Structures are given as structure tokens and as C-alpha cells.
């Protein structure tokens, strides 16, 4: 992984900033929540305390209080807000939980009967809806039976049967208690029978002075043996109690209810007897839109621990852990979420009458309320943190890019420190920087400087050596020159000639050794001019034919105008031909050919000198152009240092050209070629 990637990875650590911010906000939220819970609990306990020892506030009658348990036949009457028209239609039941599930008795969803019980003013209202597929005849009609306990304790039975839709009058029967005028009672009960496509509705109104603490009903569809209703079908049927909200208690509770809080009082059977009504919306502003999207993301990233769903209670009842705990005498608080996903805070406190728990106060508060307080701050904090994260990441990325650019620049400079002509570029970029990369660059400079010194030393070594050897050689040669030839015997003279020959050879060697170095010095002073390379080769070939009569020279040239240093170019040809002559047998052919080529910088000429003779061995062909490398196998008479092709390379590279070695395709030996650009530019 490169430096940039590594630093980018490190920069991911700055993501801890928003994470830390989220943690802090959750901490804050937790504190706020705690305070809220305390407040709600305190309020709940206060209400519960105020209701203690006062059962008549919760229970309509003491019978309700003392009802031993929750008999299966008990019913709940809604407090109706609107006047009800007795017409067999349910649509004016207003605040009653319609179309919420009807009370479907306890027989499950298969039960064909559904009912609504309501209370408004001095009347009790009952709505029955029966699903019935059969239409009975005159002898077998749909019928409904209602058992009613009057406040006086008498038990009445009201029977309804109707062959056709419309107002119906009950047949009243007194089952027990004081006798009374049943017709009068029947007249006071208003009822309406309505047929629907799937059955029938019965809607009726009963004055409260007839309706006591208990009520029950049974409905039988025509042609069916079974009956459905709130009572057991077995005789004697006993109606259950009906419970309802206490308006006074509700009014009392709504005085206590803080904004956003719903207070309810449940009696010991779980029926709701007081309700402050749905919570008024809080006056705190909801989170503003720009934050909400970001917040949603954060909430998604940092989910709260799972909340239990709010228990779904039957209409008119309370249920759930809070209610259960409060009923058993414990103060309880819990957080749950409703089906819409809103978080709720629920608190419950028992209402006591002496030692006995007579009910419970249940408070409910949307716990999202505090979010409206924290979210803008949180959003600001988080946005800032994210902004900082990106900023830091970008800065680190930039920094890493600069670093890696500097290191890359240093690497490139190091790679190209040695140029084509073997010179060292000892200046490193960025060596003036004060940091570690600057140190590195300086170290490189020092190293390269030393290498350069050493290279220079090696470079000059041959020259120095030649120079130093020259003086003793001069001594030898001048001493030999000084020998008086006349006084020597012929044997001495032969000896002298041999000594002279050796000294001469030594001298040639030393000259050759210095030639390459001297050439490098003279390169800078060469002058470029335009001339015809082809003509030069043709001219020189003539000279070679005269100079080497035992070789066959073939030329293949074209008119090749070139801008170069002619002296140097002729030296190149000389050296190539010298090399070819040395490696070709007597009578061998040497071919000089000139052709057009594509150089690195446009058009170029390639001069190839091939010869008969032995072929080049395997390995790097370019090595033949190195200094002091010779590919000869046998020792010749003339000294050979392998500098000729090195000089060729130096001159070619000085002109911005290149050299190549290979085996000839037309002749039996090797070929060496030089490519020179047409327009001469010194490299």
C-alpha cells in the first residue's frame, strides 16, 4: 500500500470524532431521559396519592369496586361526545373506537356478533351488529335478548325481533324484583332494527334510570341454534357489569396532565375510569428539516437498544407490564414504542385505599420530546465533526500526496542520477528541506558526491597512470635513442631494436589509454556543421581500400545530409572499420551501409559496418561498447585495449544517437551499427 493510502487509512481515525460526538449526545440523552422519567414518575405518584382513599372517584358504585374479579361478562361503555341518532347505523358513534375492532365478545374472530356500548348524559346506548346469512321466515326471525338490571335491583329482559327494518319496540319482561309497568318501560327504550347485506344491526337507547350496574345481551340468528352475546346462553342468564369512564375523574386528571402527557386511571379490573385525553402536542419545535436527514442517518448508525412494543389493550382497558406492575402495588416506569415507531415513556403508580390497591394511575409521554431539544445541537455537533473529519482527511491526503510526490521526485532523481554519458548528477531535489526527506536527499547527495569523486578518480586513473608512466618511458626511449649506434655490434643493435619495439608498443598503449579520456575533453569543443554522411563514407571507403588492400570493402550509401561534428563522425567510421578489419580474415569482406532510421528524436541515419569472420557470442551485446572490453579471443601483435568501440559509443551518444551490436545477416561475422540523428543536438 502506498503512503497516500496508508495516511488515508489513518485519517479514517478521525471518524472517531463523530462517533465520540454521538456517544456524548447519547449520554446527554440518557441524562435527559432520566430526568424525564423522574418527572413522570413523580407526577404519576402525585396523582395516585391524590386519588388514594377515594374509591368513589374511580368507581361508579361500590358494586363495581367490590366486583370480586373481572367477570367475563363485564362490558365497557364509552363516553360518547356526540348525540346519537337511533337509526341502525354506526357512523355517528364518533369517538368510540370505530373502525377499531369492535368488541367481539370472547368467542374470537369467528364470532358473528360485534357490539358497541356507549354512555352519554342520561342514556346508555347499545349497538349490535350480527352477521347472518339466512333470512328467516315469519316463524323464525332474528332475535336479540337484553338483560338489564335496574338501579333498583330489578332484572328486566328486553326482547327484540323484527321481520323488517325500522323502529322496534322491546318486549319487556320483569324477571325479578318489584313489578312495574312493562309497557311504560318498553316505550322509554328506543330501538331501531336495520338490515344489512350481511346481517342486521340493532341500535338502542336506554335511559339511565332503567339501566343499572349490569347489562348483558344475547343474539340469535334466524335458522341457527347457536346464540352469541355477552352472557352465557344457559339459563338463568346473568348479565355482567358495565364500566365506563368517570367524566369527573377525567376532568380532574386533565388538570394534572402536563403538555405531552396523557394520564389515565384504571380500576382494579383494568377498566379505564379516567382519561385526560390524547396528549396535547408539545410546544417545543420539531427538529428542523436540514438536520432531520443527517439525524436519521446518525440514528441509523447508532441505534438505540430495542424497545418493547406497547401492549395492545382491548378497548376501554389497560394492559402491559406497567399496568400489571402498578396493579400489584409497584411504581413502574418503562420505555416502549407504539406501532408507528414513536417512542413512549410509560409510568404507573398504584392507587391505594388503605392497604388495598384500588386502581392505578398510568402516565404516557412521547419520549421523542427530548430529541427535539437535543437534536439541533447534536446535528450541529455531528455536522461539525463530519466536516472536521473530511477536512482532516483532505489535509492528510494532501500532505500524503506532497510527501509521496517528494519521495517520488527523489526516487526519480536517484534513478536518473547517472546520465547516458556516465556523469553523475549529484544535486538532489528538495535537499534544502529541513525534515527527514530533506535529510535523505542530503544523504543521497553526499553518497552521490562520493561516488562521483570516486568515478572521477577512476575516470582519471587511466590518464594519470598513462601520464605517470610516460616519464619513465621517455627515459627509456631517449636513453635508447642516445645509444651510439656505431659502437654497437649487430647483435646489440638487434637487441636495441627489440627494446625500441617494446617501448613503442608501450607508448601506443598509453596513448590509446588516454585517447578515450582526451576525447571526452575534446567533445565539448567540437563544432557542428552540415555535411553529407554518405559522401564521407564513400570517401573514407576509398581510403580504406588503399589502406587495407587485403580486405574487400563494399559500400551501400545514400545522400545523407547530417548536422554533426565531422571529425568525430569520421573517427567513428575509422574505429568501426578498424574493428571490422581486426576481426575479419585476409580477403574477407567488410560492408559499410547507410540507411534511414527512426531515432528517438525524429529522422536519423544508421551506419552499419559488417564483416566476415567470427560471430559474436551470446550475452549482452551492448557490453562491447563499454570501456576496456574486448571480444577478441587470441592475442594480436598490436596492442588492444577495447577502447575503439567505447569511443564510438561516446561520440554517438554525444550526438544524441545510439549504438548496437549484432551478427550480420549478409556476412558471416558481426556487425556494429551507429544511429545518428539528422539534426544534431548534443545530448
Amino acid at each position, binding site marked *: 500500500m502506498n503512503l497516500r493510502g496508508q495516511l488515508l487509512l489513518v485519517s479514517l481515525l478521525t471518524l472517531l470524532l463523530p462517533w465520540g460526538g454521538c456517544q456524548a449526545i447519547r449520554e446527554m440523552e440518557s441524562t435527559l431521559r432520566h430526568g424525564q422519567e423522574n418527572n413522570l414518575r413523580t407526577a404519576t405518584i402525585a396523582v395516585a396519592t391524590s386519588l388514594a382513599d377515594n374509591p368513589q372517584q374511580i368507581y361508579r358504585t361500590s358494586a363495581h369496586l367490590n366486583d370480586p374479579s373481572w367477570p367475563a361478562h363485564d362490558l365497557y361503555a364509552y363516553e360518547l361526545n356526540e348525540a346519537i341518532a337511533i337509526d341502525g347505523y354506526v357512523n355517528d358513534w364518533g369517538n368510540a373506537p370505530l373502525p377499531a375492532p369492535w368488541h367481539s365478545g370472547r368467542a374470537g374472530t369467528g364470532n358473528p356478533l360485534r357490539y358497541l356500548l356507549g354512555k352519554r348524559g342520561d342514556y346508555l346506548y347499545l349497538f349490535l351488529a350480527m352477521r347472518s346469512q339466512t333470512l328467516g321466515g315469519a316463524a323464525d326471525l332474528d332475535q336479540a335478548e337484553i338483560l338489564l338490571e335496574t338501579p333498583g335491583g330489578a332484572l328486566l329482559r328486553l326482547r327484540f325481533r323484527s321481520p323488517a327494518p325500522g323502529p322496534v319496540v322491546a318486549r319487556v319482561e320483569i324477571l325479578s324484583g318489584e313489578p312495574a309497568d312493562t309497557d311504560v318501560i318498553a316505550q322509554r327504550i328506543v330501538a331501531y332494527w336495520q338490515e344489512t347485506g350481511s346481517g342486521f344491526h340493532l341500535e338502542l337507547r336506554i335511559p339511565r334510570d332503567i339501566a343499572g350496574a349490569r347489562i348483558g345481551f344475547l343474539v340469535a340468528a334466524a335458522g341457527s341454534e347457536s346464540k352469541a352475546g355477552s352472557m352465557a346462553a344457559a339459563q338463568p342468564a346473568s348479565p355482567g357489569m358495565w364500566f365506563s369512564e368517570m367524566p369527573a375523574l377525567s376532568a380532574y386528571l386533565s388538570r394534572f396532565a402536563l403538555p405531552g402527557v396523557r394520564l389515565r386511571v384504571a380500576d382494579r379490573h383494568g377498566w379505564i375510569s379516567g382519561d385526560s385525553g390524547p396528549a396535547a402536542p408539545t410546544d417545543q419545535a420539531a427538529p428542523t428539516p436540514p438536520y432531520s436527514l443527517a439525524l436519521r442517518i446518525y440514528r441509523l448508525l447508532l441505534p438505540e437498544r430495542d424497545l418493547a412494543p406497547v401492549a395492545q389493550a382491548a378497548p376501554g382497558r389497560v394492559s402491559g407490564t406497567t399496568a400489571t406492575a402498578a396493579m400489584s402495588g409497584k411504581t413502574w416506569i418503562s420505555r416502549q414504542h407504539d406501532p408507528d415507531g414513536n417512542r413512549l415513556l410509560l409510568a404507573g403508580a398504584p392507587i391505594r385505599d388503605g392497604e388495598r390497591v384500588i386502581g392505578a394511575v398510568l402516565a404516557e409521554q412521547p419520549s421523542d420530546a427530548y430529541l427535539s431539544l437535543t437534536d439541533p445541537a447534536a446535528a450541529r455537533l455531528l455536522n461539525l465533526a463530519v466536516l472536521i473529519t473530511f477536512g482532516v482527511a483532505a489535509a492528510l491526503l494532501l500532505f500524503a500526496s506532497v510527501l509521496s510526490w517528494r519521495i517520488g521526485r527523489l526516487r526519480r532523481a536517484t534513478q536518473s542520477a547517472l546520465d547516458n554519458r556516465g556523469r553523475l548528477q549529484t544535486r538532489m531535489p528538495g535537499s534544502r528541506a529541513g525534515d527527514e526527506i530533506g535529510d535523505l536527499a542530503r544523504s543521497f547527495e553526499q553518497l552521490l558526491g562520493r561516488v562521483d569523486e570516486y568515478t572521477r578518480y577512476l575516470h582519471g586513473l587511466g590518464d594519470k597512470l598513462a*601520464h605517470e608512466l*610516460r*616519464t619513465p618511458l*621517455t*627515459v627509456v*626511449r*631517449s*636513453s635508447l*635513442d*642516445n645509444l651510439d649506434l656505431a659502437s654497437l655490434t649487430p647483435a646489440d643493435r638487434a637487441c636495441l631494436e627489440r627494446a625500441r619495439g617494446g617501448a613503442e608498443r608501450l*607508448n601506443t598503449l598509453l*596513448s590509446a589509454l588516454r*585517447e578515450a579520456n*582526451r*576525447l571526452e*575533453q*575534446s567533445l565539448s*569543443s567540437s563544432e557542428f556543421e552540415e*555535411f553529407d554522411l554518405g*559522401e*564521407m*563514407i564513400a*570517401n*573514407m571507403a*576509398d*581510403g580504406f581500400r588503399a589502406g587495407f588492400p587485403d580486405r574487400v570493402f563494399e559500400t551501400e550509401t545514400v545522400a545523407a545530409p547530417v548536422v554533426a561534428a*565531422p*571529425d568525430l*563522425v*569520421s*573517427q567513428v*567510421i*575509422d574505429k568501426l572499420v578498424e574493428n571490422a578489419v581486426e576481426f575479419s580474415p585476409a580477403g574477407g569482406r567488410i560492408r559499410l551501409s547507410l540507411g534511414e532510421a527512426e531515432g528517438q528524436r525524429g529522422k536519423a541515419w544508421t551506419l552499419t559496418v559488417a564483416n566476415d569472420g567470427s560471430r559474436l557470442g551470446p550475452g549482452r551485446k551492448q557490453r562491447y561498447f563499454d570501456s576496456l572490453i574486448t571480444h577478441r579471443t587470441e592475442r594480436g601483435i598490436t596492442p588492444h585495449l577495447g577502447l575503439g568501440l567505447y569511443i564510438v559509443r561516446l561520440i554517438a551518444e554525444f550526438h544524441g544517437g545510439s549504438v548496437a551490436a549484432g551478427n550480420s545477416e549478409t556476412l558471416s561475422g558481426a556487425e556494429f551499427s551507429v544511429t545518428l540523428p539528422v539534426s544534431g543536438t548534443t545530448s
Partner: protein
Amino acid sequence: MWPWQRITAGPDDRDRPNVSGRMAKSGKFWLLAASHRNHRPVVVYSSQRRPVFIEMKRTIAIVEDEPSIRENYADALRRQGYRVTLHADRPTAADAFASRLPDLVIIDIGLGDEPEGGFALCRELRARSPQLPIIFLTALDSELDVVSGLRLGADDYLTKDISLTQLTARVVALFRRVDSMQQPDAAGTELTQGNLTLDLDRLTARWNGEHVALTVTEFWMVHALARRPGHVKNRDQLMEAASTVLDDSTITSHIKRIRRKFQALDPAFDAIQTVYGMGYRWLEQGNQAPP
């Protein structure tokens, strides 16, 4: 420079075989001044009007820090009849030259612990005598050294590759030039080629009548080229003509220097043409080079 040269008065006595010049009476001797035989100074003295020829040996000073080389050169030159004085370093040579100048000086550039002592010495000598022939004989043969040596006014710059024979030839040539300079009236052998006039005795060249300051080596090269205009001389031929041993690049720089000297007088000078791959040739005036 010559002790008898200062004697100018005296009766004429020209009727002497093999000698030319003026006779002068000094004390009881008659002296014949500024004479030479075979390019060697000759003193002729006579007391009874019968001349007696005595060779006056010319003095050559060799300033060279390597004793063996010094002795070898000295031996060779002595065999040729010269008087040779030897100096190992610049101070002793300068001291010796302060009292008396030699007739010719051969100087090595690196002298003992002075790497460029020869240059300093040359500068000193040239300041004292514009005519004194000075030859640099050194192992240093870089282009820069050659140019600096010649710029200081040396008459020639030779590398130690040169053989003793070649060195003596050079010395003789220089003396001949000096001698012919001292006889301004004497008509030397001249070679005229277009605008170029070469005085073969004095080894001087003139271009359009103006003097071109050529070293002996350069003179011989120009001579080799100009003698047969149009003929290409290759490097070996030039080297032979100049009686020296030079490598290719040194010949190239010699030719370059010659061209520059001519061009200093005549910017349009282009008589020396390079025939790439073959050598050089002298172009006849007004003639274009054959293709």
C-alpha cells in the same frame, strides 16, 4: 646577444672564403661577426689577417625536473655540438637566466613541486627577450595545455612522445629561423602560393603581405599543404612533414589553430579544406574545391 655583435666599427675585409659578414678589430684580433656555417654560429678571429675559424657553441638550456630525461636530452644535443645547461627547477633556472640568457630554452611545464612552473618561466623569459626561442617539451598534451603554452609565446609545443631525432630537427629549425631573422636583407628561399608567401629559411609565413605567427610545427604543416595545392594530405603525411608524432585529435586541433591564425588576419580565409575521412588540402586561390 652575441658578444661580438656589439662591435660595429672596423675595416672591411670581406674577401674570405666560406664566410660572409663584417670583420671588426678588437684589440689585436679581427672578428667576423654574425656568421654561421651549417646553421651553427661561427666565430672567426684573426691576428694576421688569416682567419681562424672557431665554432662558437650555441647554448641550449633544458629546464626539466626528471634527471634521466634531462641527461638524455643533454647528451643528444651535445652530440650535435651544442652547449647545454641543465636546470632542475624554476628558481635555479631563473637565477641562471638572470645573468645570461641561453640561445634556446627547452622547458618542461611541471617543474618539481610547481605543476605550472614552466608556464611562469616562459612568461618571464618572453618578457625579457621577444626573440628567444622557447620550446615546451612536456608530458601534458591536453588541448588546454597546448593552447596556454602557445599563447604565452612559446615557439613550439612538443610532447615527450617525440624522438630525440625529431627534437634535434626542431632545434635546428628554430636556430635557422633565428639566424635568418638577423639578416634582414638576405633574400631567403620563398614559396608563393596565391596570397601566401612562405619564407623557407626564416620559417615565416605571410598572408597578403602580413606576417602570420606560426610555430615551426604549424609552418611545416602549412608548407606541406601549400606546396601542392589541391592534393589531399592525410594525417600521417602531415605528421611526417612536421616531423612530429601527434594523434588524430591533436592534428585536428593544430589545423584548427592554423585556420584561426589566418582568419585573424583575413576573416574570409578558407584555403585549408577538410576532406572528411581523408585529410586536408590547400585550395588554390579562387578555385573551388573539386566535388
